């Protein structure tokens, strides 16, 4: 119970660039810097999926990076939320239907909060994250799964083994 309450107070972020133009990435960086300073909300950027609560994705998901995206997503512990930052992340944006992109993150993993804009402004990003935090509060520990490129989930006794969940991904691409 207590953990539920305090998770919202210090959510950690994992940022993954799935083929964006860096425009939204530098705005995320600007959010972490003094002017917008999301650290005052307890938000820290950590590059470790196992510790993160929020996955910030930018980019339309290129074919090379999609299996990494799914792998990172499956490695994150529940409850977790996904924020799609930038127009191209939400729908493919300007990159839609280019031959090497996957038209948006929600084709691959469930997205909780969409932030539009090319590039998304820092204020918008913060709002999107705040909205995601509200969703995070009501999420259960039920295992969430990617839509595509996923492997099976095994159970042994009480334990769930999720190691195979992203395994199918590498089979498909190699």
């Amino acid at each position, binding site marked *: 119970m207590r953990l539920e309450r305090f998770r919202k107070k210090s959510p950690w972020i994992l940022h*993954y*660039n*799935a*083929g*964006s*133009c*860096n*425009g*939204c*990435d*530098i*705005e995320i*960086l*600007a959010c*972490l*810097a*003094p*002017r917008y300073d999301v650290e005052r909300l307890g938000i820290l*950027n*950590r*590059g*470790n999926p196992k510790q993160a609560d929020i996955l910030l994705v930018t*980019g*339309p998901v*290129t074919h*090379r*990076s999609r299996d*990494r995206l799914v792998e*990172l997503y499956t490695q994150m512990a529940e409850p977790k939320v996904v924020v799609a930052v930038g127009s*191209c992340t939400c729908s493919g944006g*300007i*990159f839609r*239907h*280019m*031959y*090497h*992109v996957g038209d948006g993150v929600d084709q691959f993993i469930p997205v909780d909060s969409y932030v539009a804009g*090319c*590039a998304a*402004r820092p204020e918008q990003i913060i709002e999107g994250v705040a909205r995601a935090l509200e969703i995070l509060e009501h999420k259960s520990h039920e295992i969430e799964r990617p839509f595509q490129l996923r492997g099976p989930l095994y159970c042994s006794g009480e334990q769930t083994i999720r190691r195979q969940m992203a395994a199918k991904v590498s089979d498909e691409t190699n």
Partner: protein
Amino acid sequence: MIKQLHIPLGSQHAALLEPLRLDFSTENERIVSVRSDMGYVHRGVEHACMNRFDFKKVPFVVARVCGLCAITHSTAAVLATEQIVECMVSERAQWLRMLALEFDRIHSHMLCLAHVAESSGYEALFMHTMMERERVMEAQEILSGNRVQFDYATLGGVTRDMDSQCAQALLAKVGALKSVLSGLRDRFEANWSTQMRFKGVGAITLEEAYRLGTVGPIARAAGVRTDIRIESSHLPYRALGFEPIVALEGDLYARNRLRLEEIAQSIELIERILEGLPEGAHLSKVRGRPKGEAMARIEAPRGELFYYVRGNGGAIFERLRIRTPTYANLKAFEAIFLGQEYSSIPAILASLDPCMSCTAK
């Protein structure tokens, strides 16, 4: 005993903004070989520009090749296209383009410096640099209406004119930046601990820099006097009395210093542009369709950016080729990494300022 260790860095890593994979082999902490893989962000922008978007949209599409130097991409595309369609670009529009380019250079260099500071462990310096960088972002917003992707350059001129009020606001912003720059310089250059950390690390010699064909700040920090702003006449930089800056040592410290000096220089250029801005229309009509071939070179924050376009009289380009500065510098990365200590790798990588989305397009 010498033990070989293989250490992969990336493709997702806390020190990396972009997906890039580097495989290092180390012997007693020293790098003996490195392999890189940077195709993660390939989207096929060139392909789309040759198939789906007509030539008037291309400057806005290529701006999305890279968000950091978006304006250099669109300006280069515009400069190349204007040679093969009928249009007269006013002097004022050219000066406004230069203005946007210089703002872009300042913000990109400051981001790079902040990144170097963070990757070598100076968290406070990172925060400080990012804080001052916000002034430039605001100036860009005043100039163009957006902070990052501002689509300022367009065929025939620029999308927005500037009035005197706007010029005043810009002058105030760069004036404020100028006054804090010396403090920043102190922290990067005169500080004992940063000197220990940066001097002699990640060096490249003049011959190597020349032989491997490096461009931009990496080449200039090693003593190669190359700057497209003075080498090409697409934009009237000569009228501003521009002279390239070079350093000699070629190490991380020299690259930091060079970037700081270039920021100061860009501020000066911006002041001169705002003072001597010629009168005229900011946008003129474009007639006809691209026919023939043309190329443009421009000095992006990271070095020479090259655009080649070919049209056959249709609305869509027959060929568009982008050669980005990081692509030219890739060969030098290996030479710089070899023999370095593994612990310095994030800092060196940040100071080389690689742009993957530029390289992979």
